């Protein structure tokens, strides 16, 4: 060390020069001359003690100083994260902020409130203030946050497949202008409601006189808009008020599914008239005539399965029965005829309080016809209202596409611009899009992934996720929202579609923010800044809805086109989890069980048992594994091979398939290599490249999930008739989260008919008697094992201030449609991990909340059973069987009556899971989180622990939300307000089927719902006293159709 005088001084002087008494311990010490000890060591003539800086030390010091001086020249890498020199007022580290935004979805936007945790968007909720959302969501909105953090997203601008930069692309855009007048440019863009995009489109049109703008949606034509055009001469947008309807008829309309654009309003209004709070309450009756087993069909009181191509027969017959002047298009079976008559009678009785809805699989004529029936019933303006979108007459997408492809084939298109669409993947094969694209001069593609289309394009520009870029749009009712980004684009090259279109249209690089503001400035008359800020804060521009109109008169379609009824029909639907493929690289959605089949990580060809028998195909179940035969479906000149699945309740002769599978994505992320003793490939699902399916450098696809069914689509409809089907092979492994569909007669998801419920309101509650007819000694009075020292009786519990709130939950099975929003909300909120097909097949899925689906029928071989959904999560038993058996007290009761897992304490004996009668506990068999890509980690909620391997986990009743609300209340020195806390599942639920609250608060909604006579506790005879109770489902079937549910005839 360098000896410094300053330091030495102290020791040298301390004793000599101090005044005051001497302290000594021995005479020797007293005698010794104090202060000179150090000097003694070095006698005269010897080297002096090290003192001061020697020449050597001087050189050392200077050398070090120079080296350090040099180091300062090195700069740390530039990071954009800056410490708050002055903290923004509204940001408290660790406390999430919420910003209003909106998600573009099928041509509209869905208003959102996005939670930002320290700068990262982590959770998406509905915007409760928005007139059209009321805080709920479908699964898509919530899952979209994981699309943002998709590690396989495109990161760089690509020119002919090799790296380029945004400025390269800009110079390309500028070069386009050189011959803009002569260029013929085509744009394919997704349907949008964005005024700014409309303005950008106009800019494009003004630059390129020969512009073709094709709105392209993977699922095909917008039958609703076409139908409304047909019926009213303008593309009015219908809105159904199911809450006011007594009788609802769905003609293949799955209006309760998240794919429906107006899903939220449909679900909310439908639930309004299904909440039977008192046995005397009325409820609506839902008829579903459908070609699939949808969740709407599951909610139906009377359901008729029918091929999609035959539903027009039903519609026309019904219309005729009701007095609409239309000729029947085909014959019906006796049973169907009976339904026509009964439904007609019921509709007529209900009059204006009834509504008929046609679904997306049906042709525009049927939509128009449905409106004609509504008019006949007088329900236009009553249960059906219309928004005037002020759009021009919609062009048929199929026609526009045909024209475009023809032009491409004629080499008439110089530049083809594809904005966030993927026609190489999802255009029907008969269109010949891929071949035509080769004849186009320059193909530009913008998208989130380097996908099928991006690889075929000359330019690929990474698209910014909607949470990364400014935009705007209109919700279903037309209310304007600003899409507000919550984070800078994760990848520098990523730009929003607005910015890309603007660049192409003007050759200048403008920020999306300015583009949106410019357009809005034009719309807002006065005080722009204030209005803008208000709209940004609220998430919508007040009073910007479309005008509501009641059309005077419905023009009947001149004729109703029908399909040939040869061969099998194939019906194409948007996938309830992957939509059209936009969510296919989303782990949450891949693992989200299909609402009906409960299949994960696959798409299948759904068919009825009779159809399967016809085709001589089967699905076998052996030793926990489903093995399905695969079939080749040939239609529209193409063929795809897909595994089958037998779905009871499916119409015979119909095959249902969903879009969105069989992808091949390029990624810059390499596959993970692991040493042979390591099973890391099990520990997370991202190890094998893109989840949806990848593609190697040489263009060979690998590990695709499911099958792409788009090739066999026809260009203009959702139904392909006359398909031929042949069996290919057997043994394809299908993974489903629910292997058994029958309740085995157990009173689990209980229901009764409205009539039974009125006659005996206690009926549902009393179904739980373990021993029928033996009531003297009620099981509720059985002695309890640990009654004397029950956790809730301990003073530590009672003295705790949490004791004042006792949490509970009620789930109303009558309004739960099984839409899965709660499942995804829970997954996002609680960092629930995704384990992949293989591990789900091994029975190790982690979703805390599951949606149990049971088929109910009188006859075990009924091919058209009823369906009931039941969300199941931890029941938070007061006598929790899991708690008593844990040897290390890792699962314990909280003072507020919830059952909690202490992950740190858990050693993983899994006894709790065995002893849980509801089997809601989930075990971390591997370290699912150990190797998650950084991006995916960013999606996780910092307020919930990420669980490691070897510990048990389960629903917590969102205790972190409870605690932070309690903390807030305590900081503000106030009691908690009634229903101040919402669990994530409750928040997402569009029908308010889930109610969470404080049992000690008589004002709470929970306490009121618990008074309902439909309330029961699942497996109550076990006396575990669950805090979660269910309200039994009440069905309202038409008694005159009671015996009509006989096995339906084949078409």
């Amino acid at each position, binding site marked *: 060390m360098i000896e410094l005088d300053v330091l030495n001084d102290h020791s040298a002087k301390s004793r000599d020069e101090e005044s005051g008494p001497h302290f000594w311990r021995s005479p020797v010490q007293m005698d010794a001359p104090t202060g000179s000890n150090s000097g003694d060591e070095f006698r005269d003539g010897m080297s002096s003690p090290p003192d001061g800086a020697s020449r050597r030390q001087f050189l050392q010091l200077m050398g070090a100083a120079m080296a350090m001086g040099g180091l300062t020249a090195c700069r740390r890498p530039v990071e954009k994260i800056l410490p708050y020199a002055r903290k923004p007022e509204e940001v408290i580290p660790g406390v999430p902020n919420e910003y209003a935004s909106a998600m573009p979805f099928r041509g509209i936007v869905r208003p959102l409130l996005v939670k930002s945790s320290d700068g990262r968007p982590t959770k998406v909720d509905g915007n409760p203030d928005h007139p059209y959302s009321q805080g709920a969501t479908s699964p898509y909105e919530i899952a979209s946050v994981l699309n943002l953090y998709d590690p396989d997203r495109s990161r760089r601008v690509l020119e002919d497949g090799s790296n380029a930069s945004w400025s390269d692309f800009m110079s390309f855009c500028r070069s386009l202008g050189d011959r803009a007048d002569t260029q013929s440019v085509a744009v394919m863009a997704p349907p949008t409601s964005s005024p700014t995009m409309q303005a950008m489109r106009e800019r494009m049109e003004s630059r390129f006189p020969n512009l073709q703008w094709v709105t392209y949606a993977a699922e095909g034509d917008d039958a609703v808009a076409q139908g409304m055009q047909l019926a009213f001469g303008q593309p009015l947008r219908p809105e159904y008020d199911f809450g006011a309807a007594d009788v609802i008829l769905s003609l293949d309309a799955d209006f309760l599914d998240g794919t429906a654009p107006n899903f939220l309003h449909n679900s909310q209004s439908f639930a309004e008239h299904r909440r039977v709070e008192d046995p005397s309450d009325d409820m609506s009756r839902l008829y579903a005539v459908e070609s699939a087993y949808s969740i709407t069909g599951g909610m139906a009181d009377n359901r008729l399965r029918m091929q999609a191509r035959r539903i027009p027969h039903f519609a026309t017959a019904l219309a005729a029965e009701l007095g609409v002047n239309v000729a029947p298009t085909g014959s019906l079976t006796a049973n169907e005829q009976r339904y026509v008559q009964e439904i007609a009678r019921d509709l007529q009785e209900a009059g204006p309080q009834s509504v008929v809805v046609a679904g997306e699989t049906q042709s525009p004529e049927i939509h128009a016809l449905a409106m004609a029936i509504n008019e006949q019933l007088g329900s236009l303006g009553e249960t059906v209202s219309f928004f005037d979108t002020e759009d021009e007459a919609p062009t048929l997408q199929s026609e526009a596409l045909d024209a475009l492809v023809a032009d491409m084939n004629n080499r008439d298109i110089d530049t083809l611009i594809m904005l966030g669409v993927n026609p190489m993947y999802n255009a029907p094969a008969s269109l010949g899009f891929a071949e035509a694209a080769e004849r186009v001069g320059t193909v530009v593609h913008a998208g989130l992934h380097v996908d099928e289309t991006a690889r075929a394009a000359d330019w690929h520009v990474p698209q910014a996720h909607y949470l990364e870029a400014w935009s705007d749009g209109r919700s279903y009712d037309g209310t304007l929202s600003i899409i507000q980004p919550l984070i800078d684009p994760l990848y520098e090259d990523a730009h929003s579609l607005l910015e890309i279109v603007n660049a192409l249209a003007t050759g200048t690089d403008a920020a999306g923010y300015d583009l949106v503001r410019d357009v809005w400035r034009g719309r807002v008359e006065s005080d722009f800044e204030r209005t803008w800020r208000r709209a940004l804060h609220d998430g919508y521009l007040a009073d910007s809805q479309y005008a509501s109109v009641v059309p005077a008169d419905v023009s009947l379609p001149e004729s109703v086109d029908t399909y040939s009824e040869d061969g099998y029909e194939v019906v194409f639907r948007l996938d309830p989890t992957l939509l059209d493929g936009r969510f296919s690289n989303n782990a949450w959605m891949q693992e989200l069980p299909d609402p009906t089949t409960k299949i994960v990580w696959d798409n299948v060809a759904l068919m009825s048992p009779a159809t399967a028998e016809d085709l001589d195909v089967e699905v076998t179940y052996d030793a926990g594994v489903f093995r399905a035969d695969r079939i080749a479906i040939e239609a529209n000149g193409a063929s795809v091979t897909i595994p089958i699945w037998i779905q009871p309740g499916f119409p015979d002769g119909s095959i249902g398939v969903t879009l969105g599978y069989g992808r091949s994505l390029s990624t810059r992320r390499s596959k993970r290599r692991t040493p042979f003793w390591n099973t890391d490939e099990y520990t997370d699902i991202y190890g094998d490249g893109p989840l949806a399916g990848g593609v190697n450098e040489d263009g060979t696809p690998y590990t695709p999930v499911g099958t792409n069914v788009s090739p066999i689509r026809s260009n203009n409809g959702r139904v392909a008739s006359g398909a031929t089907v042949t069996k290919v092979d057997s043994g394809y492994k299908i993974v489903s989260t*629910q292997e*058994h569909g029958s309740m085995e007669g157990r009173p*689990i998801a209980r229901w009764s008919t409205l009539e039974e419920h009125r006659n005996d309101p206690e009926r549902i509650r009393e179904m739980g008697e373990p021993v029928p007819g033996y009531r003297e000694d009620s099981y509720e009075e059985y002695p309890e094992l640990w009654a004397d020292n029950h956790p809730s009786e301990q003073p530590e519990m009672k003295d705790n201030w949490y004791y004042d709130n006792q949490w509970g939950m009620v789930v109303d099975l009558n309004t739960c449609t099984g839409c899965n929003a709660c499942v995804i909300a829970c997954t996002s909120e609680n960092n629930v991990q995704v384990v992949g097909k293989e591990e789900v097949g091994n*029975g190790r899925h982690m979703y805390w909340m599951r949606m149990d689906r049971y088929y109910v029928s009188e006859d075990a071989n009924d091919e058209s059973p009823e369906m009931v959904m039941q969300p199941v999560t931890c029941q938070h038993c007061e006598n929790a069987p899991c708690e008593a058996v844990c040897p*290390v007290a890792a699962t314990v009761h909280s003072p507020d009556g919830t059952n909690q897992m202490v992950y740190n304490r858990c*050693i993983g*004996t*899994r006894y709790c899971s065995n002893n849980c009668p509801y089997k809601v506990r989930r075990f*971390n068999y591997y370290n699912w989180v150990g190797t998650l890509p950084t991006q995916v980690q960013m999606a996780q909620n910092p307020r919930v622990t990420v669980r490691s391997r070897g510990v048990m986990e389960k629903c917590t009743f969102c205790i972190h939300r409870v605690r932070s609300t309690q903390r807030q209340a305590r900081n503000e020195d106030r009691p908690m307000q009634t229903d101040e806390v919402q669990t994530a599942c409750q928040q997402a639920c569009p029908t308010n089927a889930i109610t969470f609250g404080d049992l000690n608060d008589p004002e709470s909604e929970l306490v009121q719902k618990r008074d309902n006579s439909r309330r029961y506790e699942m497996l109550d005879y076990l006396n575990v006293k669950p805090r979660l109770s269910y309200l039994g489902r009440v069905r309202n079937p038409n008694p005159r159709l009671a015996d009509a549910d006989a096995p339906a005839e084949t078409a």
Partner: protein
Amino acid sequence: MDKRTEHSEGPAEGSENFHERPRLVKGGLSFSDVTELVSYHAERKTPTAWYAAFAVASTGAMMLIAMLAYQVYNGVGVWGNNQPIAWGWPIVNFVFWVGIGHAGTLISAILFLFRQQWRTSINRAAEAMTIFAVMCALIFPTFHVGRVWAIYWTLPIPNQMEMWPQFKSPLLWDVFAVSSYFLVSLVFWYVGMVPDLATFRDRAKGFFRKRILGFLSLGWTGANRHWRNYEKAYLLLAGLATPLVLSVHSVVSFDFAVSILPGWHTTIFPPYFVAGAIFSGFAMVVTLLVIARKIYSLENLITLDHLEKMNIIILVTGTIVGFAYITEFFIAWYSQLEYEQYAFLNRAFGPYAWAYWIMMTCNLISPQLFWFKKLRRSIPVMFGLSILVNIGMWFERFVITITSLHRDFLPSSWGYYTPTMIDVLTFVGTFGLFFTLFLLFLRFIPIVAMAEVKTAMPESDPHYYDAEGDGHAPAAQDDTPYIKPSQGYRNYRGGKQNGDDTPDDGTTNGGT
């Protein structure tokens, strides 16, 4: 010839003579013969066959270690466990091995207290089997937890977290029951071995062998005082071990019985598990001793009479177990509880019906053959049957654990369990460990309790020679060699003729 070479197989009708009780040791073995016969195997040069067997067994043990390391490295997911079958093969194997570990202490403690002298020939090996089986068993609950490095949290160790284990949990009771059973069995085994170790020590040749055996035999000299203390200690330990024999499997059964799962939640479990454990434990003893007595020429010490007695116990306990199976069905029907009824119907006719019927056949039907004296005295029959019983008892645990879990209350969460290769190899590996330890036992430890066997021989009666006149053994009188190797022993040594290699102090400490 004197009585030592001609033994009646049983007392004559109406005889009350003490000497006339059936001789437990056959072949006219003298005390010295017993010592020789037992010591020989530990003292001779290790046979090649032993090395071969040891190589196989220890490979299995190494595999076990490898499998466990793999599992700890990767997680419980390498096994077939899932949701809802959170307990799979590891717990099945645990209960299986604990069950096997039941016979030894039962033989040595309970039969000791009941003065069943036939136990003496088999108790050492049976106890060794118990200890090794419990060691194999302990591996499973330890490693089946998700975080094995925190397993010590199940022990009531004062700690900075100020956390005790949760005493309501049957798993915790299990920890106490099995570990105390293991410790008491180990001490009991060791204490019983001290006189025999001293015999070994006295005969030891090598430097290390002398020192090690000297240490282990605790300075035993065979003094009267030693014997007195020894007998008292042995009696006390037997008294201590007896309730443990019953408690350990009762407590293991609580793991199931205390839960609320249909098929597990049954009050019949404790007695039924204990009976099952004795059943499987005796079967395992029979399996092992049928082989060992043959290879080690112990037919005269472990006689057919011994084996027959064990077979009778197998018959009795097997019938008890079978009765329990049927009772479970009756109770399920009688309870009128649909969940309970379904659980049992599902066992017999569900996806795991094959396992159920293997269990029924092996455990209930096959032991009934032992009603026939001829069959229960037939070595091949008893060997085959004991293997069947072991298979059946493994399947019993499989049926209880897995079929109850795979279909419980909510059909939506029903599942199926398939073991992985790791499960299989781990289980096979425990057999490797078991046989490794058992081979070491056969090689280094007196495989028959020499001292105790001698006490069970008529010659140990102080008045045995009274009939001859002066109460002394004839050999001592005549000055002829007292010790004569038995014929069987001589044959064993390759037909070598009498006398020349006879050790001279075989009876020094062994037992008088």
